[in-house]
């Protein structure tokens, strides 16, 4: 008899778990909304790539707009899913993730793009004397990269990777430091600085140089929120822009605040990283249209590239991917 009771129990447990998950999903956002708070989920530890956010929180950029911002998430957080499920109002993701999520039938939109130039690159040992990404791939060796990232598909399509052994990146630079023929993915603001401080002589080739340049550290929300609460979203974006202005001018205090939360990164590394990322955030386009502004042209190009790589199943609708939430000079 025991065997016939098992399915009932399993079914009951499954339904309970499902109901609990659904119930929790709605509650979080509702209780926050009542008290005027919003939450943003990050996809990494507090580092200079979120400098403007922490500066906006430290200064009164958020509070003077009546916003109380709770920062959550971290490495490995399923940011897109959290935003979609309403666990958080905002999230930080990459532009390609926005297109993927939309292709999978969710209504995720971008409202602010921190990096105009994607800060990801491939790091090699400078002693190898390589001068470009094609040379890196022709030289062979091991390449550590996150499995499934879009740029890896782009490399496979446009370069000859036959000589490369591609392995998962485990977010440690130890294998790189131990192996002279190793190449790995990096955030130019993170791993190269760490590698240099550990005595290596790294050289970085930006992925953007290969022609694949998705916006990075993109602030996302749901299309419904961008529509129905456009005022709140515009306030959030304006505060963030103000925070970034402050951070680019003087990152000292926000760095100190992040340093308390992220003890693995020392003050000097924070300073160097904040300096290194400046040109990627405030380029000619951002100077003209405002920090974080996005263009239809860039979203269109990315949509076509992801379609070409087979990462999205239907043609993208680039104009639906992002919302110009109060960008000073309209770019659409």
């Amino acid at each position, binding site marked *: 008899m025991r065997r016939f009771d098992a399915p009932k129990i399993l079914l009951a447990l499954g339904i309970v778990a499902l109901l609990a998950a659904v119930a929790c999903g709605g509650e979080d956002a509702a209780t926050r909304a009542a008290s005027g708070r919003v939450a943003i989920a990050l996809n990494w530890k507090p580092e200079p790539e979120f400098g403007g956010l922490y500066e906006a929180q430290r200064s009164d950029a958020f509070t003077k707009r009546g916003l109380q911002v709770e920062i959550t998430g971290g490495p490995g957080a399923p940011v897109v899913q959290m935003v979609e499920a309403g666990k958080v109002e905002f999230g930080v993701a990459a532009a390609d993730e926005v297109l993927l999520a939309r292709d*999978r039938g969710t209504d995720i939109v971008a409202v602010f793009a921190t990096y105009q130039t994607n800060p990801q690159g491939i790091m090699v040992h400078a002693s190898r004397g390589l001068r470009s990404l094609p040379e890196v791939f022709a030289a062979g060796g091991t390449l550590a990269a996150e499995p*499934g990232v879009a740029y890896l598909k782009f490399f496979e399509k446009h370069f000859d990777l036959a000589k490369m052994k591609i392995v998962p990146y485990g977010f440690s630079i130890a294998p790189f430091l131990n192996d002279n023929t190793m190449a790995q993915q990096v955030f130019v603001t993170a791993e190269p600085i760490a590698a240099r401080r550990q005595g290596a002589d790294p050289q970085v080739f930006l992925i953007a140089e290969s022609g694949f340049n998705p916006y990075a550290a993109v602030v996302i929300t749901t299309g419904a929120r961008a529509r129905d609460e456009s005022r709140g979203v515009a306030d959030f974006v304006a505060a963030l822009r103000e925070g970034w202005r402050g951070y680019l001018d003087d990152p000292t205090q926000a760095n100190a605040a992040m340093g308390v939360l992220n003890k693995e990164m020392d003050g000097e590394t924070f300073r160097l990283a904040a300096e290194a990322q400046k040109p990627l955030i405030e380029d000619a386009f951002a100077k003209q249209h405002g920090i974080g502004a996005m263009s239809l042209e860039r979203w269109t190009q990315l949509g076509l590239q992801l379609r070409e790589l087979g990462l999205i199943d239907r043609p993208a609708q680039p104009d639906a991917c992002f919302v110009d939430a109060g960008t000073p000079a309209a770019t659409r």
Partner: protein
Amino acid sequence: MSAAHRRLLEAVLPPAATFVLTTAAAEFGIRAAGISPLLLPTPSAVVRAALQHASTLLPALAMTAQAVVIGLSMSIAVGLLVAIALSTSRWVERAFYPYAIFFQIVPIVAIAPLLVIWFGYGMRAVVAAAFIVSVFPVIANSLAGLLSVDPALRDLFRLYGASRAATLWKLSLPWALPNVLTGLRIAAGLAVIGAIVGEFVGGGGLGVVVLEAMRQQRTDLVFAAVLHAAALGLALFAAVNATSHFALRRWHSQEKDP
């Protein structure tokens, strides 16, 4: 209907009914609740993903299976030898058994990145991960079996002047066999988990398919890959059960047909 057919039907029908009911409940429940496919895909979407990506999943399954079989074989060999060594004397057991427990409590996820540094990327790191998590149940269960030999039978062997080797081969090991097989059943499932974790850092197999699918927000493919891993664990479990049945049906009551 012959008796054999009836028995087969009785064995297959209950789990099949469970499968159909839970799958149908999941399919309609997820649809009715309007849950996003990004959070929880319907079973039909998972099956579609499995068929659509079969050319990715099947080679990955073969790769993971290879690592699991090698890792599990090493666990059986090493685990049995260690258990035999530990069972030889109380002093040896006291001196080394606490350290064997290390393999059980080692957090494989935490040390997985080290495996890559020790063994390099690829199959060796994956096999090491599968071995580390699966060796302890073999040691612990085999040792328990070897130490539970009926003292009266042990005395009998001594009375007849049997050598230590003969006692081990003819008494202790056969006596411990049910325990050894219990250890193997546990080890088989753990070896699959270990291999997948190993692949997360060392590369290859279903582990990388899971990572890729997560990255590309193909939750249906994540589930399809997980199902393949589960099927692998189930196949190994069935293999151990079959071995158990053939090895023990003449001796042990639990394997005799009812």
